[in-house]
């Protein structure tokens, strides 16, 4: 445990701690740009330099470990000048047009330039030119704005194990991007948007759908309905300065009404619907395997995360049969809104315009998949990220924080607590087990408060098992079977889990995968900046929302009973098959 001083303050930290981390522990913030907590420390940008007594040169605090007796200075004229020079150099070649940039007011380069008090740029640099790649439906890249910090590279390769981005060429010609500097659509990218979540500047952002939503709201021939994913309500408040994990469900509904959405529904409703279909699908696979002794694709994989789906299509096409055929809650919503609900209000599918608000970037991609038009037209018309909704609320001049709480419209809005936890890693699994276990045994899942701790936390890969006893007669063949489940979040973890499954090292019945670290609450479309601490706060909020509901299990949701009674008839039935289930396509990785 080395002891040292930072700006005269003594501090004792664990071996291997960097100067940056040690300073943070005692409340000293050193500016950074390329550093990414827990993920990347490469010492590339040198904004984080500090003085170490006895050292001739300034050192990058994000990579330099502390040593016994070090005396560190983090604020001096020499340092302010050095940091300014570094940022001035970046700005001298930066194609800066902050006022019209997607990241205006939400940009780390802008912030650091402001904090360092940069007044004029003394260097004459050759400005990078705008070089905009709109080849994919979910993301826009502009190499002209890129400061080559490589955060996106590390996230895409290490955290997500996809590898769509990499430094290309060398020297002055270096660009960060897909193979040979070509468009993103030419390589395997799952559209998760984790790169956009970590990019400090406006070099990778989501395809903006705000204008098309305003247009639909102004169009008198359209009935515009909105659905919000569970993960949005635990994060939207951050756009308005509220702390991470503040639940703003009621204010969000109020804001949506004020934006002009005549009907405000909830993706939670179709999350409950997904659970019914997906749990029954799992049981039918188990029946096939255990009772009929026929080959069945087990483990069954969850299918609500579109980045994960695309990942399987690229990297594990042999496992496509294992993916649940259930559409995601977003797509189930679009399909039932344009059929079941449209009919109720006397509209045709093409008169209804469905807007989703998602913590996710890949949902923009999912909505455009050719399979996703079971109502006859595209089921979901526009997908806003949490960030985009925040901006729309600001554009409309709504004072979000002082809004009253309102509640969603009931038909496609009422939901159980099981639906809320769809937003966090381990949540879909718990929600599905609540229903599956009860179908098999007639009893409630035997965990206190229905909470399965083993699969709830932040570890990358989690496992649990439930032994089935005293079944109802119909499922007696499952008597004594121990159901083994696994949960992974972040595609890098999914990759490790898949290799274990592939090699036969691990055997499971049911596996939940969420593309983004932490699950949807850490999605690529959430307010920046999402650290692990922020993820934990948002997850806590989701469990709070769940446990605060009277109805905690999807099959107890009265509106779910109603839609089966009035419209769908039964789970996995013909209507379900047509509207709620889908198929997947194997994709070539190169």
């Amino acid at each position: 445990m080395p002891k040292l001083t930072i700006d005269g303050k003594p501090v004792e930290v664990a071996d291997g701690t960097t100067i940056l981390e040690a300073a943070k522990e005692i409340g000293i913030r050193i500016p950074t740009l390329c550093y990414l907590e827990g993920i990347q420390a490469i010492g590339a940008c040198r904004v984080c330099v500090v003085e170490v007594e006895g050292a001739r040169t300034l050192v990058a605090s994000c990579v330099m470990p502390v040593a016994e007796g070090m005396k560190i200075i983090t604020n001096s004229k020499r340092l302010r000048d050095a940091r300014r020079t570094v940022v001035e150099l970046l700005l001298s070649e930066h194609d800066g047009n902050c006022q019209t940039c997607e990241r205006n007011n939400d940009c780390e380069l802008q912030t650091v330039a402001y904090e360092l008090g940069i007044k004029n740029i003394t260097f004459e640099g050759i400005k990078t030119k705008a070089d905009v790649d709109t080849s994919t439906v979910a993301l826009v890249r502009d190499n002209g704005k890129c400061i080559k910090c490589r955060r996106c590279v590390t996230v895409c390769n290490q955290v997500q194990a996809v590898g769509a981005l990499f430094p290309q060429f060398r020297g002055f010609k270096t660009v960060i991007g897909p193979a040979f500097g070509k468009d993103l659509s030419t390589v395997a990218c799952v559209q998760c948007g984790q790169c956009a979540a970590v990019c400090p500047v406006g070099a990778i952002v989501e395809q903006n759908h705000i204008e098309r939503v305003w247009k639909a709201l102004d169009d008198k021939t359209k009935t515009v309905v909105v659905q919000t994913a569970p993960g949005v309500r635990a994060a939207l408040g951050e756009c308005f300065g509220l702390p991470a994990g503040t639940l703003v469900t009621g204010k969000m509904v109020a804001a949506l009404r004020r934006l002009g959405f005549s009907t405000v529904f909830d993706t939670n409703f179709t999350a409950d619907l997904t659970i019914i279909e997906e749990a029954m699908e799992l049981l039918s696979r188990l029946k096939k395997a255990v009772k009929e002794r026929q080959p069945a694709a087990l483990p069954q994989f969850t299918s609500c995360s579109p980045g994960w789906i695309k990942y399987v299509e690229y990297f594990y096409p042999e496992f496509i049969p294992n993916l649940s055929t259930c559409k995601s809650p977003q797509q189930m919503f679009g399909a039932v809104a344009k059929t079941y609900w449209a009919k109720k209000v006397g509209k045709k599918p093409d008169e209804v315009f469905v807007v989703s608000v998602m913590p996710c970037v890949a949902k923009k991609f999912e909505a455009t998949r050719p399979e996703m038009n079971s109502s006859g037209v595209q089921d979901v018309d526009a997908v806003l990220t949490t960030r985009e909704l925040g901006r729309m609320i600001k554009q409309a001049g709504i004072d979000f924080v002082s809004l009253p709480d309102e509640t969603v419209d009931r038909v496609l809005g009422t939901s159980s607590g099981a639906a809320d936890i769809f937003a966090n890693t381990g949540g879909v699994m718990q929600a599905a087990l609540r229903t599956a276990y009860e179908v098999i045994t007639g009893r409630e899942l035997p965990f206190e408060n229905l909470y399965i701790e083993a699969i709830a936390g932040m570890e990358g890969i989690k496992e649990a098992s439930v032994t089935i006893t005293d079944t109802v007669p119909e499922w007696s063949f499952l008597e004594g079977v121990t159901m083994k489940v696994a949960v992974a979040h972040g595609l890098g973890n999914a990759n490790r889990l898949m290799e274990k499954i592939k090699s036969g090292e691990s055997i499971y019945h049911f596996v939940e995968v969420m593309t983004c670290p932490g699950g949807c609450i850490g999605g690529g479309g959430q307010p920046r900046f999402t650290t692990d601490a922020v993820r934990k706060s948002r997850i806590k909020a989701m469990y709070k929302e769940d446990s605060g509901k009277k109805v905690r299990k999807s099959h107890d949701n009265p509106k779910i009973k109603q839609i089966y009674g009035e419209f769908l008839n039964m789970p996995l039935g013909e209507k379900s098959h047509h509207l709620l289930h889908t198929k997947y396509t194997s994709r070539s990785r190169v």
Partner: protein
Amino acid sequence: MIEMKCDCGSEINERDLVKQLDAILDEYRGKPGALIPVLQMSQKMFGYLPESVLKRISLELGKPYSEVAGVVGFYSFFSTVPRGRHLVRVCLGTACYVRGGKQVLEAIKKNLGIDVGETTPDRNFSLEVARCFGACGLAPAIMVDDDVHQRVKPVKVGEILNQYLTKKTKKGKKSAGKKGAGK
């Protein structure tokens, strides 16, 4: 191995080459640090790194295509365009540089109509720069294939390059697309 050098009927050998590539990939699959040696061997076999070969390497070694491309683009040794029959290298070491190497390079670029790292459309010449081949006393120097040409004057580059076209025609009776080179 010998036919591989032949550039007259590459289609005939394509299948053999792919077989050889697969053998290399089999050997290196799963080994750490395999990418660069595999790329080197592939370039030696094919003369350059065609897209199809890079994609195969990416798939077989389980390396993202963007990473493979990034490595290929980082080292000037690797080329994704077919090399010309003759490699022209212009020395830009200090001695050659101060004695007009840069002007010689410009003259060659103009003569061939290509930039450094490129190959003429008729595939006769590829152009590269080099850092010194020990001919400093007689700078500026250029190398065409294995021949060093010293005290090169910009006005003479056309003449030097033309020699190679004639040589080739006489020796190898290859007529493919030599006309128009040097234009």
